[in-house]
């Protein structure tokens, strides 16, 4: 410029650089609010995800517990009833005892040792008959 040197003198340049480093960065409030809002959204999302995961875990645990109790119940009750239903009619009546007695007579009664004494005999037949005539509470 008009034959003059357009570079700053080193002392001034150093001073300006020094001042610039010391000056705090001013963030406009709009940007600040936007960053804060995004951060809040993000943390809310993380919290929601954790809460959802916890709910799923409890629901799975409850469902597992119910399934387990059903299984235990069926293991306790079902075998005896199923095994006593010799003719597989869906109910235990005297015809099941009769069917087992006939099988014993024919020598084909294996698998119906209901009282688990090692033999299939009249005691097993009596057990089924007793179940057939057992009084149940009246529905009325």
């Amino acid at each position, binding site marked *: 410029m008009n034959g003059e040197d357009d570079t700053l003198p080193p002392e001034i340049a150093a001073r300006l650089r020094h001042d610039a480093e010391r000056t705090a960065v001013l963030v406009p409030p709009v940007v600040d609010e936007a960053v804060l809002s995004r951060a809040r959204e993000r943390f809310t999302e993380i919290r929601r995800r954790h809460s959802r995961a916890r709910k799923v875990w409890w629901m799975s645990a409850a469902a597992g517990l119910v399934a387990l109790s059903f299984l235990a119940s069926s293991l306790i009750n079902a075998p005896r009833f199923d095994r006593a239903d010799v003719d597989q009619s869906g109910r235990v*009546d005297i015809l099941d005892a009769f069917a087992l007695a*006939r099988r014993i007579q024919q020598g084909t009664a294996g698998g119906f040792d209901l009282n688990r004494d090692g033999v299939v005999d009249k005691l097993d037949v*009596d057990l089924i008959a007793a179940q057939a005539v057992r009084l149940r509470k009246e529905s009325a």
Partner: protein
Amino acid sequence: MTALRLLVAIVLLVVGRASGQEPVPGTFRAFDLFVDSGNQPLAAYQLSFAAADAKIVGIEGGEHSAFADPPYYDPKAMQENRVVVAAFNTASPGQLPRGRTRIATIHIQTSASVVKQYELKVEAAAMPAGESITVKAEAVERNPN
């Protein structure tokens, strides 16, 4: 001595009431249960019997040798007004009853002079090979003497 007798009487009365078994005043009656299997031999049956205002006090077998023994029943039915009776016989068809036959007798205790309400249901019946059959059942009160 009179006081002692009075005390014993009171104790017996209290114990009798506490046991909850109030006797039904009245008479003993009997119902004969008949099953009619028509021309088919009867090998097994299951019936339920209920009578109003009565307590079952005894059950005995039927007239035919195949069902002469008392049938299966729940011992809890004693002192109740309903019972399920059932029996079977694995004998050959020729040794089993056909037609109408008395298969059991139920003895009851009742306060009513005449048992007006009773119910008899056939729950199951079968022939010697195990096939289910339809039978007729009837409860007939014995003539009280």
